[in-house]
């Protein structure tokens, strides 16, 4: 933003007292607001640490690797939810990335110009659909299809891989959650990637095409290498979205709290989903505190994801010599 650099000259103190007071007030209010946003982030961290303190002091870091959630014997652990969060978000990333990159390439390289706008708008509108509606659709429409068609077919054709075990009798489970999360992260990854692909200098693409490369070879040899860092950051941001999703997953994952199943059709749970389901049912202070602990883990994940994405963007921007 070069907006400021030119106006810096005009920023010299003004002589009128009223003018100075007005400047002071507006600048003060604006600075306080900006400080307020920073304070909110700090408050969030502090509030979660405070809420999780009881559980932190009772279970310590062992909480992270402990399986099981037993409100009767006051024994709580996060391992089930970490496993569920990992398998569903990475599954969604695996399924969603090729789809999202395909859409982005279609819009930036393949589509006739009249189709560009509509496809972009429709795919980005997908991001506006509330998670609760995707969850509603997931449990009432998608789950029966998964149960009757997808899961039996996958089991009979790929059943020798332990991942594709016996189908689920309801249609809920990890795979259904993966499909639902995929729908939610595709628009994120594709809209960032599209911008990146459109930013590739035309001379580079024309050079490759002029040398006789096919369109795909141009994409593989020029577009992908040029945008590698940005695409990685887009994937990480998509992952961040999938990690934190609570409601849609809560509706379709089957909500079992103490199973770590290698079967992708199995029921399980994730950090966010379990907080959404259990928070108001928590019977003891220790259980509630443990749920806040899960939230704290989620907060740390989202911070790490953000920092990672920014670091990647900054590094690739420096390498390309273009300010992002």
């Amino acid at each position, binding site marked *: *933003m*070069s*907006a*400021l650099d030119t*106006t810096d000259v*005009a*920023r010299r103190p003004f002589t*009128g007292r*009223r*003018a100075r007071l*007005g*400047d002071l007030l*507006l*600048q003060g209010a*604006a*600075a306080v*607001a*900006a400080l*307020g*946003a*920073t304070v*909110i982030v700090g408050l969030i961290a502090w*509030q979660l640490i405070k*809420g999780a303190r009881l559980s932190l002091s009772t279970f310590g870091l062992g909480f992270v690797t402990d399986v099981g959630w037993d409100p009767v014997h006051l024994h709580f652990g996060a391992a089930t939810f970490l496993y569920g969060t990992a398998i569903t978000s990475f599954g969604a990333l695996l399924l969603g990335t090729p789809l999202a*990159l*395909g*859409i982005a*390439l279609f*819009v930036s390289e*393949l*589509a006739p110009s009249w189709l560009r706008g509509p*496809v972009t708008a*429709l*795919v980005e509108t997908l991001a*506006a*659909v509330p*998670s*609760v*509606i995707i969850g509603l*659709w997931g*449990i009432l*429409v998608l789950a029966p299809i998964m149960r009757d068609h997808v899961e039996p077919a996958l089991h009979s054709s790929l059943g020798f891989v332990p991942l594709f075990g016996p189908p689920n009798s309801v249609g809920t489970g990890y795979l259904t959650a993966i499909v639902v999360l995929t729908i939610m992260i595709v*628009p994120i990854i*594709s809209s960032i990637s599209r911008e990146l692909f459109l930013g590739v200098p035309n001379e580079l693409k024309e050079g490759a095409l002029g040398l006789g490369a*096919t*369109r*795909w070879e141009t*994409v593989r040899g020029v577009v992908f290498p040029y945008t590698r860092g940005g695409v990685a950051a887009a994937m990480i941001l998509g992952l*961040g979205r999938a990690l934190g999703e*609570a409601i849609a997953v809560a*509706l379709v994952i089957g909500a079992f709290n103490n199973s770590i199943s290698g079967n992708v059709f199995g029921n399980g749970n994730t950090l*966010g989903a379990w*907080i*959404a389901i259990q*928070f108001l049912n928590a019977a003891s202070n220790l259980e509630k505190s443990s*749920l*806040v602990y899960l*939230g704290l883990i989620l907060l740390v994940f*989202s911070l790490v994801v*953000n920092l990672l994405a920014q670091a990647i963007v900054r590094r690739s921007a420096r390498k390309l010599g273009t300010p992002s």
Partner: protein
Amino acid sequence: MSAADVSILRRPNDRLRRRRAVNLAMEVLGWLAAAIGVALLVILVWSVAKRGASELSLDLFTKSQVPYAVSGTSQGLANAFVGSLVIVGIATAIALPFGILIAIYVSEFAPRAVRNGVNFVLDVLNGIPAIVIGVFIYGLIVLGRGQSGFAGSCALAVLMLPLVARSTIEILALVPNSLREAALGLGSPRWRATLGIVVPQAIGGILTGATLAVARVAGETAPLLLTTSIVGPGVHWNPRMALQSVPVAIYELTDSPIPSDHAIAWAGALVLILFILIVSLTARWLATRSRRKLARAAR
């Protein structure tokens, strides 16, 4: 060079044929991906429309939910619509001025290093999962005082804040510098140049950004579930008590084993999705228009 040689050059050899085949396969995959992406939205909206349309009636908007209703009782979501209106309204009233002030600071006052810092904070805030914001507001406001619509508003305001601030920063950056310089050159102080010239120029873009943020948080469920979900029967407007909201109602009705509850969930989902789609598509259209106008003014 004889004629035969030229024809050899023209004939695609095996290698070229394979390269072309790979290219064709990839292009087909690209078309397929785009088709799937569009189909996902169409299928989602169509599923909701098909199941929700039959339940759309005046009752949906005039009658409230009846807890533990016997199948066949006529009920609606009036309490949820009113609750959502109050909660989102208060959230907007908090987040809009707050977000715009942050944007004014970043784009008009802040030195470069501070500007990057605030942008970073906004990115972090934007990345925090909604459920974590719910846990935060639960600890900050609900704990000890009980659930309230106001607590829900605060949670939604935290979610809206980075959205409003970022879209406003983007639009303020498009306001031509010549306008700022002209105002300052005529001797008006900075605060008048900002509030009287810069912000009014960008107000269309600021409001469309705010509208998009409203559409985003109107469908949020997770934070409201923790902060304002344990509700009594009937329609309530008072934000000091817990208020029902459309997304929370859909979530609870979806979880219910009674099929007639699912029907109301679909109807609520249809109203919500129509609201969000219409608002966000209109706002998007207005945004490109006002952006174009600013770009023209800069020339």
